[in-house]
């Protein structure tokens, strides 16, 4: 085991290598020289002056260095957090977390929390908007996020377990759960996953998701993310475990299954009849989004007999002057659709909207008029794309896009046979997926008990829960 290096001025200076935001301050208190340092920007100059330097400078000049250090730690300095720090690494960690370190020569260092109050305030959710419901979304600061969760769940059973992940990034990762509600094995499993992470950094959502879920080879999400604090808290109340990562304005929930990914926060803002109807519509949207391009290719290329005659005649009429085969046309349009989406994402918001309009309306209409594509194919691809937007989970919608493309390609090879084979492969793949030990298709294995697709009445759900039934 590596020996801990004592904290000294020179060692701290060398650790930060002359970085521009490393600020030093010397104080001469009687005969004792106290050396303070902090990182500018992470700390508040006012707080350092008021809650570290001023109280220290008011200490009697007659105090010796040990007495001064003891008073600085146990009473003389009015600061909410004052921690004794003996080794270099701990002191460096404190500095990068917004502490000011005061070094008492020959004694030890004391770290005072003087974080800057400059943070992004909780704002309304940008992605998961609802008409009703809470309007506070997670921010990039984990401590603000934990406070938001505490405000929704005012119970002493709420637990946070914080650890530092990333050899270079030193990111704070917090595991959240409700004691007595969440299965302790699930909590241990998540804590173990976090503890076992031996990576340079965990700065991006993909890094968090892949590392925490064990990098399964699937496009389907095995962790559910949300920017809504109320949704996160509801997940905790359902016995799931949460993860908050410093720097990411979202919370993760595990385990996740297909049913949960099809739930929208708006479902609990409506009456159960409307919410159930919308859920059915969402499932229909999922099926159409996945199957429509493939079905069109299969029907137009292999199984024309299955189309009603007027529809077939309309398709033939629209396809007559188009030089490309149906499969090439649909796959090309799907690709163009993805390109347009990607272009819209990479550009600033206002320009992105223009791209969508130019791409979708102008180029689409021009291509149809120039008879490069048929209106039927354009309608099919656009309808599939719009149906994909009804899916509430962004990650899940992305997975559906990948599979939509694969199913369309299989249809181009083998018509309905290929489409059916692809669909079966997808269902088998989904049935084999597990999120933290829970099968991905779990809600549908107990579909007869209700609540898998339709939203149950909350009163019925409560009584089912009281009777030990599945809700």
């Amino acid at each position, binding site marked *: 085991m590596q020996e801990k290096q004592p904290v000294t001025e020179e060692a701290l200076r060398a650790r930060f290598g002359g970085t521009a935001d490393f600020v030093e301050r010397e104080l001469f208190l009687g005969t004792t020289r106290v050396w303070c340092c902090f990182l500018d920007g992470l700390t508040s100059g006012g707080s350092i002056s008021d809650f570290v330097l001023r109280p220290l400078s008011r200490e009697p000049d007659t105090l010796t260095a040990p007495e001064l250090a003891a008073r600085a730690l146990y009473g003389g300095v009015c600061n909410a957090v004052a921690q004794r720090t003996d080794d270099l690494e701990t002191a460096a960690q404190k500095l990068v977390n917004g502490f000011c370190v005061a070094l008492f020569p020959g004694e030890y260092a004391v770290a005072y929390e003087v974080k800057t109050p400059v943070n992004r305030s909780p704002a309304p959710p940008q992605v998961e908007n609802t008409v009703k419901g809470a309007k506070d979304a997670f921010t990039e600061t984990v401590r603000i996020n934990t406070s938001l969760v505490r405000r929704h769940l005012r119970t002493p059973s709420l637990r946070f377990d914080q650890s530092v992940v990333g050899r270079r990034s030193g990111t704070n990762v917090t595991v959240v759960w409700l004691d007595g509600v969440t299965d302790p094995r699930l909590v241990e499993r998540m804590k173990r996953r976090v503890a076992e992470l031996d990576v340079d950094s965990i700065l991006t959502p993909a890094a968090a998701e892949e590392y925490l879920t064990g990098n399964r080879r699937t496009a389907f999400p095995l962790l559910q993310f949300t920017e809504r604090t109320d949704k996160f808290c509801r997940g905790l109340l359902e016995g799931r475990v949460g993860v908050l990562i410093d720097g990411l304005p979202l919370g993760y929930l595990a385990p996740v299954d297909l049913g949960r990914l099809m739930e929208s926060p708006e479902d609990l803002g409506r009456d159960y009849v409307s919410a159930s109807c919308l859920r059915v519509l969402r499932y229909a949207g999922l099926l159409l989004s996945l199957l429509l391009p493939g079905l069109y290719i299969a029907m137009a*290329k*292999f199984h024309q007999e299955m189309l009603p005659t007027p529809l*077939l005649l309309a398709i*033939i009429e629209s396809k007559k002057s188009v030089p490309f085969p149906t499969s090439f046309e649909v796959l090309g349009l799907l690709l163009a659709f993805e390109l347009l989406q990607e272009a819209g994402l990479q550009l600033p918001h206002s320009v992105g909207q223009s791209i969508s309009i130019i791409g979708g309306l102008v180029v689409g209409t021009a291509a149809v008029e120039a008879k490069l594509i048929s209106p039927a194919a354009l309608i099919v691809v656009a309808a599939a794309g719009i149906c994909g937007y009804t899916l509430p989970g962004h990650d899940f919608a992305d997975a559906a896009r990948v599979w939509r493309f694969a199913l369309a390609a299989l249809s181009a*090879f083998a018509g309905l*046979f290929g489409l059916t084979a692809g669909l079966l492969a997808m269902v088998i793949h989904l049935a084999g997926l597990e999120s933290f030990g829970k099968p991905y298709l779990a809600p549908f294995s107990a579909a007869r008990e209700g609540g898998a697709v339709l939203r149950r009445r909350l009163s019925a759900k409560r009584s089912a829960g009281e009777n030990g039934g599945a809700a």
Partner: protein
Amino acid sequence: MKKLLLLAAAAALTAVCGLLPFEGREVGGLLPVRALVVGRENGELTVSGGDGLTGRGPTWQAAMDNLKATVAGDVFYGSTCDVIFRVNAADAVADAMRDNRLRPAVRVYLTAGRPDAEDAADFLRAHPGGVTLQDIQAAALERKKTELPVLACGSGGRFALYDR
């Protein structure tokens, strides 16, 4: 991933070599036949699907093959709803019954005139008859006689259907 890529490459190779047991045809190249008019001229059977689709030959099979051979495109009988036999070709009903290209639900008519297939299809879509190829087949198996609906052709493309 490697397995998936290998599988995709194998599928693509099979498709390129034409070894896949699935044969597609482009919907844009289809020549849909909505109604088929069957007659006899100069001792030959004629089949006409309208829109320039005409075939002739000594037998039903030969006439249908001729129709397929003389057009640029794929003649599509999946959209055929009506087959109209002129009186002088009524004996071809039995051949039509055995032809797998026509759906069993295709309706069958008899006519004394020379109807245009497209015009007749428009009329019969609004006024369908009640006898189909499968009805005729069922009646033949029971050794019963089937009375076909009669399509009368008036002047100016007007039609009337007499169905008992």
